């Protein structure tokens, strides 16, 4: 059987790759991909520990909810990114530095 530590290590590395992307990238879409990577690392942990809950499926159920929430978040975030691009003609978060009404 696969030990829990293996899942934990894989998800920790995925989480840190997502963290690296969020901090270092200068493009909102790539930052969004980094957030998705971190979410997937967390879901991997939920699913791996969900193996030990056969009757109520707590981990798997929470993973399903997290996936649906990620979908909703991504839809809203991409709509915001499109709006920002329309307003500023760039999606670099470092260069979006004033409010919209001017």
């Amino acid at each position, binding site marked *: 059987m*696969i*030990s*829990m*530590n*293996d899942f*934990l*290590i*894989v998800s*920790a*590395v*995925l*989480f*840190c*790759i*997502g963290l*690296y*992307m969020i*901090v*270092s990238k*200068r*493009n909102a*879409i*790539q930052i969004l*991909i*980094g957030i*998705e*990577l971190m979410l*997937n690392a967390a*879901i*991997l942990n939920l*699913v791996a520990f969900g*193996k*030990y*809950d*056969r*009757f*109520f*499926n707590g981990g*798997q*159920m929470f*993973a*399903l*909810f997290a*996936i*649906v*929430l*990620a*979908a*909703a978040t*991504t*839809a*809203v975030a*991409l*709509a915001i990114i*499109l*709006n920002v*691009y329309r307003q500023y*003609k*760039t999606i*670099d978060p470092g260069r979006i530095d004033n409010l919209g009404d001017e």
Partner: protein
Amino acid sequence: MSLVQILFYVMSFIALGSALFVAATKNLVRSIFMFFVTLFALAGLYVLALADFVAITQIVIYVGGILVLILFAFMLSGKETLNIIAQQRSKFISINKVAAFLLAGLFLLILLNTFFKVDADHLAWITGSVRFNNVITPTAAMTENIGVNLMTKYLLPFEAISILLMVALIGAAHLSRKGEKQ
């Protein structure tokens, strides 16, 4: 070493390698398409963790929905600005990335240190659930159980998340329409 373990190592290698490629490459389109591979490998890992329904949901929602959305957003935001960003990024290669790399590396160190100290296979609740035969076996069919639980024990979160999904989709459609004034 059993076949399951070999499959686990292959899947996690694919997932981590493609995630590293996603983080390292300069080409945005290529990184989005490598993210497909990461998500598929993660679905494989979910299957190996005996959660086949979650794996199918992952493929349907992430690969079918979210990635297509990301591709849409990429295609709709102009290509020229992205090229400018790429040039800037290659100029500022040192300071920005070293700080991010340091942060991620130290965080990984802390996480791994914690995991090796915790000894996750022998936690109290895990040994308890093994004793009460509360472990999903590889031959068990969990989808029916998930459906029954979703309609009984988790009915309130299910309804809340459905309303939240509707709110988010209406909000996204409202945000991304063309303004009348502009």
